[in-house]
Structures are given as C-alpha cells and as structure tokens.
C-alpha cells in the first residue's frame, strides 16, 4: 500500500525532502532558518492560543473547579463516586456505542453522496449541495421535533404502515445521519472534486481494476478527509444534545443530556463537573488517536479545478448510483424539512401564514418575548457574521501556523483546536456567565459575548477545512515564488491564499452556519431582549399551546430559509471563483 502511494503520489521528492533534511541537519545556516521559521510559527499561534485560553480553557476550568472544590479544597473522591453509579455507567455506554453506530451509518450513507456531488454533473447539483447542508445548521431541538413528527405517532410511516420508530434508537441514529450527511459530503466531496482523475487513470493503465484503482489510489488520497469527516461526526454524535433530549425519552441519554439535566434541573454541579471532565477526557482521547493516525497521511496531492473532474453520469450503473443518492437525499433530508414546513403552515382550520404573521408582534407571543420574535433573525445574522469573522481570523492564523510540518508541540495544538467541538456547550455557556463578568474582562453586558462563544465552535471547522488544502499545496510552488522575489508573507498571499480561497469560503460557510445554529452555549448567554433564532425557537417550544408550537415551526422554517439562502449565495461565489481559472 505504501509502495503504491509513493509511486502514484506526485511527491516533491528531492524538493521537500531536501528542505526537511536540511532543517534537521547540523550547520549554522540550517539552524538559523529553522529558528526563524519557528519564531514565525509561534507568532502566528499567539492569537489563537490567547483566544482559546481566555474564552475556552478559563470558563471550563472555572466550572470544573466550582463542581469539584468544596471550601477551597479539591474533592477528587467525587469522580470515583459518580463513576461507580450504574445509571451513569449506562449513560456512558449508550453515549459511546450510539456515536460509533451513527458515525458508521453516516459514512455508509453519505460517502456515495460525496462521490456523486463531487464527480457527477447534473441539473440542480449546486442547489442540492446547499440543501443537504441545511440540516447541519438547524437547531438540534428543531431536528428532534421534525423527526418526532416524521417517525412518531401520526407521522407518514405510522399512517401508511403503522410503523413507529420514535421510541427506538433508530430515530436517534437517523436524525444523526440527517444532521451529518453534509459533513461527509462537503469535507470528503470537496477534496474528491479536486483530485486529479489522471491518478486513477494511471493506476488503471498499470493494470488495476476500477475498484482496485479506487482502493489503492483514490481512497488513500481521500483518507485524511474521510478521517476528518468521521472524527467530526463522531464528536457531534458523542456530544449530541437536542436530538437525544427529544427522541431519547427516558430510555436513552447521552453525557451532554445528562450534564444539562444535572446542571439545569437537579442543580447537582459536582456530578455535572465530573461528567464534563469525563466527556473532556473521552474527546481528548479520540482526538489523540486521530492525531496519531493521520499524522503522516496528508501528503502533497495533485489538485485540479473541480470543474474539470465533474461530468455527466455514463452507463446504467452510474445513473443508478445517482438515482440512489438523490432518493436518499429526498427521503432523509427533504422529507423531514418538508414535514417542518408543513407543520409551520398547518394553522387551525386549514393551511395559512398565521404563525408567520404572529412572529412580527410582541403581543401574539403572550409574554414569551420582550421583542417580536422576528427580531431574532437580525440578531442571529449579525452575531453569525461577527462570529464568522472571528473564527476566520483565529482559525486562519492557526491553519497558517500549522501548515509547515512541525514537531510534537504543533501537533498537540492541532488537536487542541478540536476540543471545543467535544466539550459540553452547556458547560462553556455557563462558564462564560460565571467567569467573564468581572474586570478586566467584564463582557456580561456586551453583545460580543454571543459571537465569541459561537466563534469557538466555528474555529475547528475553519482549521479542519483549510489545513488539508494548505498542506496539499506543492512546496515548490512557494519556492518558485520565493526565487522570483516574493518575501515569505508575499508567498502566502500570492500562492497559498488564491489556492485556499475556495477552502476558506467553505470554511466561512461552515462557521457561519454553526454560528447560526449554535444553541447549547448561546441559550445561557443571549440577553432576553436579544434572542437568537434557535433560542427563540426553543423558548417557543418550551411553551404550551398550538400557537407557540406553530410559531416555533414557522421560526425554524425562517431559520432554514436564511441558512439555505446564505449557503446558496456561497455556492454562487464558489462557481464565480472556479470560473476564473
């Protein structure tokens, strides 16, 4: 396998090998250069490190301290006490196996989709690519409700065949696939579309069958992207909150649900702190394994313009594959979204826009809100824009610092950036409240608090999306620019930036989307007069009555449309860009 890889991969060979060798070699010149490179890297990392220290490590540490410290003394005995409880062990077991099952199921269903969206040219491709991304940004609570409506009592399955899945684990798994389909399609498909098809053709000519060529050439090249996607899906499902909260009932509960229950309902901070630590350790472990396995996999790939790789399907097999993927998208993605829209229009006595009209006034909400719920749209957009900008700056700097291959320290930093995805959002939000309320950082009253919390979740996406592309840029292109007189900064601007512009747009899209949909942390820190869309939806769902439920559905639909429009705009920019080369 390694042999095949090194044969087909257009590695720079002597080029980069020479640089690496020299950087490790003795000699003053080599050491001086390596030293400068390290200094640059440290400077680039300073801002991301500071950001994570203040807005992540500090709040989380404060919460854990509050839970495990009594009268100024650490009580580590509590960890053992909590972890020996059978109910907690059940939660741990369920959290783990459902995350594995969800990840496997998502990969199984979404990898063909990634291929089809990357390599086939068919009408409506851009539009559908944006559509499948919509679920990813929907508030978890809304998704849970949509699946309950779809799979539960009175849903289409129940009415047609009398099948109900809402009490089974399948509802949770399917909702997780619904959520994460886009993660695989975009992460893996984005790279797949840019892989040079001639690599596979070279293998075919050398005597490999179609499947063998894919297995030996394409899959190894895709491996970093598949691993990154699988890791993300695992992290999301391991820390799943809203979906399990609604579909799991009393039988199924993940760590995050349990943390929320202990914090918000039972006010048992010590148990919540222990569970936060357990989740932290588990996620840390997963990330460590990930860092270890993909360490050397991101080789130099030959990237080409995606427009060159896509073509119309040929032959019955390819049309069947396209049909199967479109069918999956229809059933898995469009149907739940359709049910959502249907419910939002289902006013008493027929269909209409009554729920939407009610969103515009304070009175109709019956005292649930200080402002008309529709204001939440503008709040969300403003917050998400700021959060995206912050995530792009922090994540972009981190990715630039991580591009140059480096030692253990930097690899650790790489994994560290992923931690916000795994740490309980509930803990982060609550931590913001109790730590950022005194000088020098008194942000309690400031609007910036919400975008900061949201950016925290956006940064890992930015890094994960940009890093593989940055690392795949052929090092000799940078050398060519340097020889032509470009300073290191100029090289980055002239060579790296244009090549990663596409990746950074995708990254921005992801960051924007998760900022729009972020719920766990925002619910703690959003001010009552400045609710975001997901917070408003949850508040409406928490109130009894058909009007509130209908308004929640209507507001979710608005959120869905806002996301879809933003994503479609993003797809448009992407095409314009690719038209340039």
């Amino acid at each position: 396998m390694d042999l095949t890889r090194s044969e087909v991969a257009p590695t720079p060979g002597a080029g980069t090998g020479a640089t690496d060798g020299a950087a490790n070699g003795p000699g003053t010149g080599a050491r001086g250069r390596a030293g400068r490179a390290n200094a640059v890297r440290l400077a680039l990392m300073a801002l991301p490190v500071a950001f994570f220290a203040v807005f992540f490590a500090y709040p989380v540490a404060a919460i854990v301290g509050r839970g495990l410290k009594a009268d100024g003394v650490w009580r580590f005995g509590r960890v053992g006490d909590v972890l020996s409880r059978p109910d907690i062990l059940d939660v741990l077991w369920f959290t783990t196996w459902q995350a594995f099952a969800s990840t496997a199921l998502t990969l199984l269903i979404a990898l063909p989709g990634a291929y089809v969206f990357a390599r086939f040219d068919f009408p409506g491709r851009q539009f559908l690519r944006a559509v499948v991304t919509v679920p990813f940004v929907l508030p978890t609570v809304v998704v849970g409700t949509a699946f309950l409506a779809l799979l539960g009592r009175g849903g289409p399955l129940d009415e047609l065949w009398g099948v109900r899945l809402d009490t089974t684990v399948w509802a949770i798994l399917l909702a997780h696939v619904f959520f994460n389909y886009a993660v695989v399609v975009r992460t893996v498909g984005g790279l797949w579309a840019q892989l040079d098809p001639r690599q596979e053709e070279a293998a075919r000519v050398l005597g490999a069958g179609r499947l063998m060529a894919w297995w030996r050439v394409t899959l190894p090249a895709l491996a970093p992207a598949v691993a990154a996607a699988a890791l993300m899906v695992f992290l999301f499902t391991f820390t799943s909150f809203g979906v399990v909260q609604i579909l799991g009932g009393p039988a199924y509960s993940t760590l995050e649900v349990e943390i929320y229950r202990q914090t918000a309902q039972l006010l048992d901070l010590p148990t919540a702190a222990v569970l936060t630590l357990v989740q932290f350790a588990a996620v840390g472990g997963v990330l460590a394994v990930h860092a270890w396995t993909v360490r050397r996999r991101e080789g130099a790939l030959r990237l080409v313009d995606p427009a060159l790789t896509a073509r119309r399907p040929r032959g019955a097999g390819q049309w069947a594959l396209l049909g199967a993927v479109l069918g999956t998208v229809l059933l898995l993605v469009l149907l739940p979204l359709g049910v959502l829209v249907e419910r939002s229009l289902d006013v008493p006595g027929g269909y209409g826009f009554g729920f939407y009209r009610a969103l515009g006034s304070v009175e109709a909400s019956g005292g649930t809100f200080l402002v008309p719920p529709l204001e939440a749209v503008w709040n969300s957009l403003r917050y998400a824009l700021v959060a995206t900008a912050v995530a792009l700056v922090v994540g972009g700097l981190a990715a630039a610092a991580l591009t140059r291959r480096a030692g253990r320290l930097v690899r650790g930093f790489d994994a560290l950036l992923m931690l916000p995805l795994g740490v309980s959002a509930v803990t982060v939000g609550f931590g913001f409240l109790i730590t950022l309320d005194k000088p020098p950082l008194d942000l309690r009253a400031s609007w910036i608090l919400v975008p900061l919390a949201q950016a925290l979740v956006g940064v890992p996406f930015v890094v994960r999306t940009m890093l593989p592309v940055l690392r795949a840029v052929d090092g000799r292109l940078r050398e060519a620019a340097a020889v032509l007189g470009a300073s290191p900064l100029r090289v980055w601007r002239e060579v790296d930036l244009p090549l990663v512009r596409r990746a950074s747009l995708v990254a921005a899209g992801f960051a924007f989307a998760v900022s729009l949909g972020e719920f766990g942390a925002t619910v703690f820190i959003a001010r009552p007069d400045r609710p975001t869309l997901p917070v408003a939806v949850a508040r409406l769902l928490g109130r009894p009555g058909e009007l509130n439920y209908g308004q929640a559905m209507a507001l979710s639909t608005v959120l869905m449309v806002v996301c879809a429009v933003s994503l479609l705009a993003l797809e448009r920019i992407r095409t314009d860009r690719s038209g340039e080369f």
Partner: protein
Amino acid sequence: MALLTLSDITVRFGDRVALDAVDLEIAEHETVCVLGPSGSGKSTLLRVVAGLTPPDGGRVLLEGADQSGVPVHRRGVGLMFQDHQLFPQRDVGGNVAFGLRMRGVPRAERTGRVAESLDLVGLQGAERRAVAELSGGEQQRVALARALAPRPRLLMLDEPLGQLDRGLRERLVVELRGLFGRLGTTVLAVTHDQGEAFALADRVVVMRDGRVAQTGTPVAVWQRPASAFVARFLGFDNVVDATVGGDAADTVWGRIPVPEGSARGERSVLVRPAGVRLVAPGEGLRCTVEARTFRGSRVAVLLRPDGPSGGGPVLEAECGLRDAPRQGAVVGVVFAAEDVVVLPDRDTRLRRPS
C-alpha cells in the same frame, strides 16, 4: 570578478552527502552546464545557490558578496524548475509578470516586459491563455519567460529541456544558446543529457556523487575525459583496464597503441568507436559481429572478441554504411592510436553485461 563563486559547499541529508566540498566559479556572461547522473547532487547545487537549501558548510558568493543569511527572495537569481511549477491560478501573463510585480515594476513597464519575454521564447500574445491548456513545450517556454522577465543576474535552469521530445529539444537548445548570447545572461544549467550540455554550454562540469569529476569546455571534456567514470557517462563503452608502458597498453583486447607521451602504469584506456578498425579475420583481435545499429550516416557495430581468455568485454566500432559487416560475420580488429585515450584511473564501474 566571478559572478558566482561556490567554495567548499557541503550539503548532507542525514547520512547521505549530497554535495561534498564543491568549488565552482562562473564568470559573467558565461553559460555553465552541470552534467551528471541522477543523484549526483546537481539539483541540490542549484537549490543552494538559490538559498532554498542552506549548505552545511562552505560559502556562496554572488558578485563577491557572501549570501549566507540572504533569504531566497533577495538573492536576485532566477530558477526554472524541472517541472516548471507554473502558478495554476494565474494565466500566462500573470505567471510571467510575477517576478516583476515582486520587484515593484510599474504596471505599464510590466506589460511591456511580459510581452517582450514571451516574444523571446516564441509565445507572442499568449498573455491571456490559461496555463492548464498549454502543451509541455509551451509550459517550458512560459517557465523560461517567467525566469527571464525580471532579468536575474544569474539564471539557473534545472533540466531545462528534460520533458520535451527530441526534435523540439534540439531546436530549443540552439534557440536558447542564441538567446543567452544576445541577452548576455549568465546561466547555470543542470542536465543529465550530455548532448544538451555540450550544445548549450561554454563550460561543462561533470559531477559524480556530490563531487566535481571534471570541468572544461565541451570539446576538451569530450576529447579527454578525466576518468573512466566520465568516459562512460559520456556514452563511451570501450573502456578497459590496461597496463600502459611506452607506446602501447596491455589489455584483455590485446596490445593497444596509445598516443605518444601517455602516462604509464596501471590505468584504463578508452578507444573511441572510430578508432576500432575492421580488418580481415586473420589480422588483429578476432571478433564476431553481434549486432548492428544504424545511426544515420554511420553504423555502430557491436563486436564480441573470441580471444583465448574469453576475449574480454564487447567492443563498439563505427563504420560507414557500405563497410558494415553482416551480423554473425567474423572480422579482425586493430586499434588506431589517435582515437585512444589513456585514463588516469582503473575502470571502477561495473562493465555492462557481455
């Protein structure tokens, strides 16, 4: 003063020594070709001059100024990469203009210089073309135009014509030589193809295992290879160990006459194919014709000696079209002293299987 001076340059990659105390000087307006098999350290030499690979020892001087501590982008040299490394996201004009932009050349002047550079390489008006749609030869020309446009004080070419077909290569060599002559460019090129090196260079540097094996004008190197390695690398296969004494050398091919004043002792001798004369079977070394290869107006004839001691390695002779014996024919071979060169060392390379 030499434009480029390398003194005692050493580069190690781990345990492997890529360049071993290399000294080299290039005068202004001179075209120097470094010739050597792959892995001999040629490309590393260029990378050291460009500043892409810091040397582990020794100094690089450009116009007398020490370049250690001068970063790549301030050295003012041009390097054309072996596989071009054109920027995929820019068109032809954008690629050629890159170096000019980096030097802050104003836009109006830039446009003119880009057109001029493209003109020089025979790609007039190609500014707006995408690099992806260029043929290999065109990419090579664009890469050359890009390297030439900023008018670097030293232009370095890594296997400049490596990936082109033969006809194009031969034409381009002539064009390049004319171009460099007209522009007065100082050139340091690297190639593994001796034909290319000899056609392009004022001076040839043959490298082996990170060391300079021979330096000289193409004619001098061709006529008097400095070692059995250089002789074999230049494509001469009639190299054999010899004991030289007086006016002849003892070899497995029998006694071979050597030019007057040749060094004596345990050495090796090279017999150019033209110096292997075919005579009647009774005379000289008895050989069987093993193969014939047509080379245009001449025929290369491979001869297997059937002497008493197994006869020694196969010999190559060069004949006119009409004189070439049939395959399987038995001939006699005598050697002409004017095409025999005594090499200072024993033949260290494995002989080709005979």
